[in-house]
């Protein structure tokens, strides 16, 4: 995992696979209202695709998402969740009562958008944390732990 263990065959395979995994994660996120899935599962699929990239490409050729980016994602997710919650608190509702957000839409559509924002926050947070756990387990040297 530390060195690049991939071959051109594996490289071509993940080039085909990873975009579809991202598409499936987006599908799971958006259809989480009325079918199995949701933010957590979408985040796990996203993290699995990124970990697959890291397994094949190795430490030296990470271009998609560095460990620092994963830490940023793990912070942005809870920030999005809590931000939507406190924004609805700010506009006169309860915490996470996103029906009161002043968006130029129908009330039901505002609720759907609010739920989607919450789920997107969960997805980004879960993906960042899982990638970070993998980085620490596989890449951090023994003497620095």
């Amino acid at each position: 995992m530390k060195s690049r263990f991939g071959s051109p065959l594996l490289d071509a395979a993940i080039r085909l696979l990873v975009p579809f995994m991202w598409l499936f994660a987006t599908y799971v996120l958006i259809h989480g209202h009325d079918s199995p899935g949701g933010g957590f599962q979408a985040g796990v699929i996203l993290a699995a695709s990124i970990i697959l990239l890291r397994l094949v490409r190795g430490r030296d050729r990470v271009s998609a998402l560095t460990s620092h980016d994963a830490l940023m994602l793990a912070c942005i997710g809870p920030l999005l969740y809590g931000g939507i919650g406190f924004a609805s608190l700010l506009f006169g509702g309860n915490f996470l009562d996103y029906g009161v957000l002043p968006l130029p839409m129908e009330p039901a559509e505002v609720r759907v958008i609010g739920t989607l924002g919450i789920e997107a926050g969960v997805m980004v947070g879960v993906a960042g944390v899982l990638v970070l756990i993998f980085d620490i387990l596989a890449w951090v040297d023994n003497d620095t732990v």
Partner: protein
Amino acid sequence: MIDALALLFLVLMVVCAAAALRVKDLLAAVTIFGAFSFFSAAFFVVQDALDVAFTEAAVGAVITTVFFVSAIRRTTRRVR
């Protein structure tokens, strides 16, 4: 009443768990644990709990296996 397919998956789960405990090679134990997660997900599908099955298949069979293999790589592979 639990049907035959669910019973089959439950028995396979028990077999996988016992095998993962008894085997000496830790990498083999992790692989068998992945099979345990897969049968567990199949059991949840039979029970119409698709959401739980989805989560189990994604987390248990993929992420946990990768984490365990990474952890084995830092330690020894054999049971003392």
